[in-house]
């Protein structure tokens, strides 16, 4: 059974979908951030798969940039979570309806 791109693409679709489900179903702000990391990982996996399939380095470079962006996103997101926790004593996103009428 040779390894082809289809299996990796299927796995990346499953990974991305699990991330979306986590954002929809989880209610803690930190769990939602972790689910966003799952989605980014799914996208990274398909980038690397296509880079391998076509033998080009561009896909890997995009993944390099995405990993950097994910680091920035995690730092900022967790800073926001700390600020929210200071305000509300909770990280539950259902209680954060300040901007909702």
């Amino acid at each position, binding site marked *: 059974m040779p*390894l082809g791109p289809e299996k990796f693409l299927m796995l990346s679709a499953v990974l991305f979908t699990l991330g979306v489900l986590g954002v929809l*179903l989880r209610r803690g702000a930190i769990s939602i951030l972790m689910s966003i990391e799952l989605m980014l990982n799914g996208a990274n*996996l398909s980038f690397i798969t296509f880079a391998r399939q076509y033998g080009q*380095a561009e896909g890997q470079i995009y993944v390099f940039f995405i990993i950097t962006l994910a680091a920035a996103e995690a*730092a900022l997101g967790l800073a926001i979570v700390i600020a929210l*926790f200071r305000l509300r004593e909770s990280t539950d996103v259902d209680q954060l309806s300040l901007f909702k009428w």
Partner: protein
Amino acid sequence: MESVAFIVLSILTVTSAAVVALPFVRNMVVCALALAVNLVSVAGLFFLLSSQFIGFLQVIVYAGAIMVVILFVLMLLSVDDEQHMGSSGFFQRYLGPLLAAGFVAIVGSTLVVSSQATAFPALPDSYGTVGALGRELFTRFFYPFEAISLLLVVAMIGAVLLAKRRL
């Protein structure tokens, strides 16, 4: 050999992602450690796809730095358990999983229909090495690279500003 590694890594990836995403495990630290397992097994998949440098980067940046930040915030805020599990919205609770299953089914059926059971083509020796990637990064992708370093500085300053109690 490679397909055995792929099967083991994909089982690890999917189960750990399910622990992170699906609202069954309350303990947040368990979820964070499952995310670490997931990130390391995705790094293993990158090695299988002969992208060594990105695989190492994934282990160092994702499984190292980002996981440490997430665990640090978890311990700092001591939110061990989520207060209430599961979303209250109708759409999120019922329609979301349905649409997710539909998406996976559509992607899977497309891949099955279009599959020619092809193996990956052969690669040049330099593929995925630090040298090959660095050459691209500092020639064709020089300006995006500089822009991303500027973005990292902005994110660092922003994180300090947001988390600081009083400026």
